[in-house]
């Protein structure tokens, strides 16, 4: 009897074992991005930009040329690369601390310029790498080490919906929020990410896919509960939707 492989590891990832905590969905999102790049046959023409936070080491995991950037500055770095090499695929991979807090300006202006890059924006409503601080995306009532009583709106403000905000910019071509909490949603995530990269390949402008993700370690719950938490608590605040879909890219 001959054995037939039914699943293979994507060529888009290196052999390096990731450092992510058990139950974190960064690994899934990495795999999906890598599979898309492999399926589009653009791995050799891609330059990825790593950010600062849990995804700081992505340059060791994606099997393409990678640049590590300063905290929040990945869209500016990607802009510099893309302006020199307009025919390459350029993407950033950023968390919500990196993009929504310190790097919001770079993200907004890259979108406003219609910079022909793709941002993979991973939102788990907390700073993971530094030990679980409140992020701009932290939910009201969510306990973090810098909102120990739970985030309250009067002194700590309200959650920031980045996709909705970026979608208001004329320069944005395609903006969608997806989730990583179960298999059907992961399939939708892949479709969205592929669409974004295809739009970039056609030179049609700025694309961002926001992916809701987990942080069992800093949320203080287990992996299964974390997936449930995304569904029960995050999606009501961060609805899964296509926020921007320019006529030309449909």
């Amino acid at each position: 009897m001959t054995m037939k492989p039914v699943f293979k590891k994507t060529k888009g990832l290196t052999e390096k074992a990731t450092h992510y905590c058990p139950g974190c969905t960064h690994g899934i999102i990495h795999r999906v991005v890598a599979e898309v790049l492999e399926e589009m046959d653009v791995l050799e023409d891609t330059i990825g930009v790593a950010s600062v936070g849990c995804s700081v080491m992505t340059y060791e995991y994606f099997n393409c040329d990678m640049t590590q950037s300063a905290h929040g500055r990945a869209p500016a770095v990607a802009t510099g690369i893309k302006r020199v090499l307009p025919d390459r695929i350029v993407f950033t991979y950023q968390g919500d601390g990196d993009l929504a807090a310190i790097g919001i300006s770079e993200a907004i202006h890259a979108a406003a310029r219609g910079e022909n890059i793709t941002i993979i924006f991973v939102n788990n409503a907390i700073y993971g790498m530094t030990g679980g601080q409140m992020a701009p995306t932290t939910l009201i009532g969510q306990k973090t080490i810098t909102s120990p009583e739970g985030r309250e709106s009067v002194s700590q403000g309200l959650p920031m919906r980045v996709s909705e905000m970026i979608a208001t910019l004329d320069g944005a071509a395609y903006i969608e929020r997806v989730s990583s909490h179960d298999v059907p949603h992961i399939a939708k995530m892949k479709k969205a990410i592929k669409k974004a990269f295809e739009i970039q390949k056609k030179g049609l402008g700025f694309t961002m896919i926001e992916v809701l993700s987990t942080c069992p370690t800093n949320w203080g719950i287990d992996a299964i509960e974390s997936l449930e938490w995304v569904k029960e608590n995050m999606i009501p605040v961060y609805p899964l939707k296509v926020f921007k879909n320019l006529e030309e890219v449909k």
Partner: protein
Amino acid sequence: MAKLLMKGNEVIAEAAVKAGCRYFFGYPITPQNELVTYMAKRLPEVGGVFLQAESEIAAINMVYGAAGTGARVMTSTSSPGYSLKQEGISYLSGAELPAVICNISRGGPGLGNIQPAQSDYFQATRGGGHGDYYLPVFAPASLQEVADLMGDAFDVADKYRTPVLILADGVLGQMMEPVEFSDKVVEELPKKDWATTGTRGDGGPKIITSLDLDIGGLEAHNSRLKDKFENITKNEIRYEEYEIEDAEYILVAYGSVARIAMSAIKLARKAGIKVGLIRPITLWPYPQEPFIKTRDKVKGYMSVEMSAGQMVEDVRLAVNGHAPVSFYGRNGGVIPTHEEIYEKIVQLSGGVKA
């Protein structure tokens, strides 16, 4: 090539284009705006890209991205903007990316004013950002020197894979002088097999990073950087000497102030005072040689600056106690006149002999 009458900021820009710079990421700030304006018009003419960033922080990080592809890339700013670029410059140094940055410096601290100043000397010559690093600093004194130095600045950046700073005060940025550009045209850039341009045909992913979580790994990287800085110190120091052969007193000045000091020296020589000038052209690495050979012969040095006293510390280090070192400066955007420097020379030498 014929002589052209041009403004300093435009000379810097044109000389960069002639040196093969095709990418410029800028942000408006006085007194360097003509440089950005010139690039906005000029770069598209030569197939390059000019982009006005949303901030100095974004601009330097765009430079970081473009430098990573191996392109010749530049940004320019003035003092407050240079402070904002420090983070990116530290990353450029750590990730060993070549780029040229211009600081057309103005009065500080804070928002200061828009008049010329040399008060960013410490920031320029001590790395400026976080971590163990230096970057080569060129300080031209005339627009012709600017035209001649820009190509070298890009070459040094590429050769050593380091950011390079052109530190010119607002006088140089704003003044007009005749300049003659060299006919040399940069056609081919040095090969950069480390550049992240995609892996097609090169066998595997390349990584640009300044991160090394392994403690031993970072120390090894920093030691390699230190070796590189020592090499730059060995090979790239530049300075000019003026009337120092018989000098009893030596002024030390750089940039536009050096030219004012030369006028003061001419007056002093007429009055019989034997005074000369050491003009560092590289501020880092700092020239030691002209001090070592004169410090046991002269009666004293005087650092003349448009600051409250910054380069004077490097003069003291170079003189190393062999002779008295004094300082004269104006700051906050005030330019010293050659007459007032002359008065200081007279005081230093104990007065003009009748």
